[in-house]
């Protein structure tokens, strides 16, 4: 069976303006939402706080839970339905921290029992103190930074087969970051600076493929984070795991296309045929680019619908990442390499 015919020849490079416009809109929306919401909607993992997941044996109005909570002074607590309606499950979030060993969950349980008449089952309690939240945020940023660093080294070396240059890139990147860290700037600034330096280095050193791949990666991560921000979804530790996996995974498709471009470009001297050659390469690999994403989506979609509420957002992030990653390997990474070749 074949869905995408082997002799397929869509003028994808010709449509790169549409792709460019679409990417630009998505990026602007993402950045806009991130500015309006003042960054991602960080969950308690990163800002501290308490969440308590409770389950009732029968239907309970949310209002009664809220009034029970405000009776014991939890005015800021938010209560929301969790999972399917028939589960009668709720998630309570509060910035209150259970700093003493005297039970917060116990007092919440009693207060809710008093206001609703039904004793809830406490299924999950997560409390993160502000210091721990700060540490986790730092760790998450470090993880993002190091995976980008190592992947940069790998792709600059691998795509161009210039390991010397890749070493130079990595060395100067680390030196720059070291000097910045001496000035005690925040991790977010540090990572942005590192990214700018990386892209500038790729430009100066004429590492076209590496630059295309890197821009595509940033595109994927930014849009995924942006969609989370637009939909106001919790940005928690598993989402970081999803982002890192997306970084690793979205490169797969890019590598397949780039490998084919290099194979086709061998021996070709004139630049004029490049657009045709690039388009041919994309088309030749289109079947596997799409199919590999389809097989991954085929397992992610059941995970999204059946995997339970806790893993829901993770599956969602992965689904977005896989789709955006496939799109970007064709409409972002390849056009950039083509443009860089014209330079």
């Amino acid at each position, binding site marked *: 069976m074949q869905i995408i015919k082997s002799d397929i020849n869509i003028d994808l490079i010709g449509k790169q303006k549409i792709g460019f416009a679409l990417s630009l809109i998505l990026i602007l929306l993402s950045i806009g939402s991130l500015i309006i919401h003042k960054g991602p909607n960080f969950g308690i993992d990163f800002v501290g706080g308490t969440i308590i997941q409770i*389950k009732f044996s029968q239907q309970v109005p949310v209002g009664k839970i809220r009034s029970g909570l405000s009776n014991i002074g939890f005015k800021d607590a938010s209560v929301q339905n969790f999972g399917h309606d028939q589960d009668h499950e709720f998630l309570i979030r509060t910035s209150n921290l259970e700093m003493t060993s005297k039970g917060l969950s116990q007092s919440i349980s009693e207060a809710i029992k008093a206001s609703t008449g039904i004793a809830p089952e406490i299924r999950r309690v997560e409390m993160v103190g502000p210091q721990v939240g700060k540490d986790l945020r730092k760790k998450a940023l470090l993880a993002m930074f190091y995976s980008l660093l190592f992947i940069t080294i790998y792709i600059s070396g691998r795509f161009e087969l210039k390991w010397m240059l890749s070493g130079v890139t990595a060395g100067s990147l680390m030196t720059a970051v070291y000097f910045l860290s001496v000035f005690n700037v925040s991790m977010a600034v540090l990572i942005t600076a590192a990214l700018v330096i990386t892209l500038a280095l790729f430009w100066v050193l004429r590492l076209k493929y590496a630059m295309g791949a890197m821009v595509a990666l940033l595109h994927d991560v930014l849009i995924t984070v942006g969609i989370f921000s637009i939909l106001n979804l919790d940005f928690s530790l598993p989402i*970081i795991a999803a982002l890192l996996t997306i970084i690793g995974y979205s*490169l797969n498709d890019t590598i397949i296309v780039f490998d084919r471009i290099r194979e086709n470009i061998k021996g070709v001297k004139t630049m004029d045929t490049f657009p045709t050659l690039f388009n041919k390469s994309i088309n030749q690999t289109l079947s596997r680019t799409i199919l590999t994403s389809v097989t991954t989506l085929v397992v992610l979609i059941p995970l999204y619908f059946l*995997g339970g509420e806790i893993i829901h957002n993770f599956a969602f992030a992965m689904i977005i990442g896989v789709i955006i990653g496939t799109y970007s390997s064709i409409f972002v990474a390849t056009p950039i390499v083509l443009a860089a070749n014209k330079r």
Partner: protein
Amino acid sequence: MKLFTFKSVMIFIVVLTAIVCFLPTFFNCWPHKKINLGLDLQGGMHLVLEVQNIKAVEAEVERTIQEIKKQLRKEGVKHLGISRLKDNSILAKFQGDENKSGFETVLSKNFENLITHKPQADENNITFKLSLPEKETDNIKKMATEQALETIRNRIDEFGVSEPDIRIQGGNRILIQLPGITDPERAKDLIGKTAQLTFQLVDEDADVNSAVNGTPPVGDEILYQNKYNPGSGTSTKIPFLIKKRVLLDGSLLTNARVEFDQFQQPQVGIEFNRKGARIFDRITGENIHKRLAIVLDNSVYSAPVIQDRIAGGKAVITGNFTLNEAKDLAIALRAGSLPAPVKIIEERTVGPTLGADSIRTGLISMVVGGILVVLLMAVYYKKAGLIADLALTINIILIGGGLAAFQATLTLPGIAGIILTIGMAVDANVIIFERIREEIRSGKTALASVISGFDRATLTILDANVTTIIAALVLYQYGTGPIKGFAITLCLGIIASLFTALILTKSVLIFILKNKQSSKLSI
């Protein structure tokens, strides 16, 4: 072609090893190593405590001050006050050269370890500032954390939790994982109890109420007793004026156990060692008809009037305990007090029913996703697709076997990782099969297409997986708990899929083509 080539034997051994490692998870058989389930799947509590070890330094400074005062008294040196400052240095004031040199002699004789800053003289007073060397305060802090760890470990052992994991997590933090705990609140209460037991006299000369409204007399402090009123269900706080001097503390205990009074109310009976018993004997003898307060973690439990000298070193702590409270207090006292208070800075508790639900939903989505992928491959690539499906099955066995063999922990994100690798494992097959199809179209024979298809796809597949492995390794390094579980299954899955795609599928395809005389490949 022979079935038993070196390669096929190797494949066979790898798969067999994985099966042997995987089986104990389902059946009770050798090697008896099941896959460990994370706290989010089996239910349990994850706690991070912060030992407030600066308090241990404060206590040490206070002790040093007492010691200095004692030595000065012995040498007949007069001082105008020795006190602890906020930064844990000691301020000592003297008048006159005689006292100054006397103090300096005492310092050089008994307190060589203290750092003496340049003394300041104003009018006729001389002020010394002393401090503990940094090395020593660091050591006190480190010891406090280690001792707290040991104490908490003893308490949890006595509380009875199977396979607890308790360790120091950098600096002054202690990580505690208690799988399958049924009463998290009680466990938290027991762990967090400082259990600082002291015997102090009640100040009978001053009035409590005026002290509560004003300031307590020098050398006294106000501590409260929580009196529970069973009739109204409320509790009231009764203030006591307690002399700061500690006559006896819990460090000299040899035993503590639950006893019952004549009304069958639980209470905790304590027993001192010989030294403690001697001190107890002396203080009760010296203070007959005075009240002796039993103070636990800065609240008064009882303050009975000493009727007579008590020999034998036995006492009881009463305080309207429930049976569990009395049991836990006895455990805490037996295990010893924490050298400094602890604060819970992170808690993640998952109830057993939620854990079971997570396993169920995780497995369901894994099975559904797996079946969909298997069908997709079989329909799209026909017989070659079936080989990919076989590879996928073996892939899952390899991950399971790997998890059991390395005794790694399977978490909910870990299950998601396995599901993800199911999708990614067939990716490798897709890349190879598409390449083989291309080769066939260019007119090569099936066997030649398979060989050159694998040759040309291998590098691409390796590349694609290296980048994911980089991400997974970084995640493993920086991730915590459940996320680490995801990184582990992702790594295992990638390695397994490289093995199944590049070695297993290839061997099977070539074996079939070489044994079948037809040159057609169903792909």
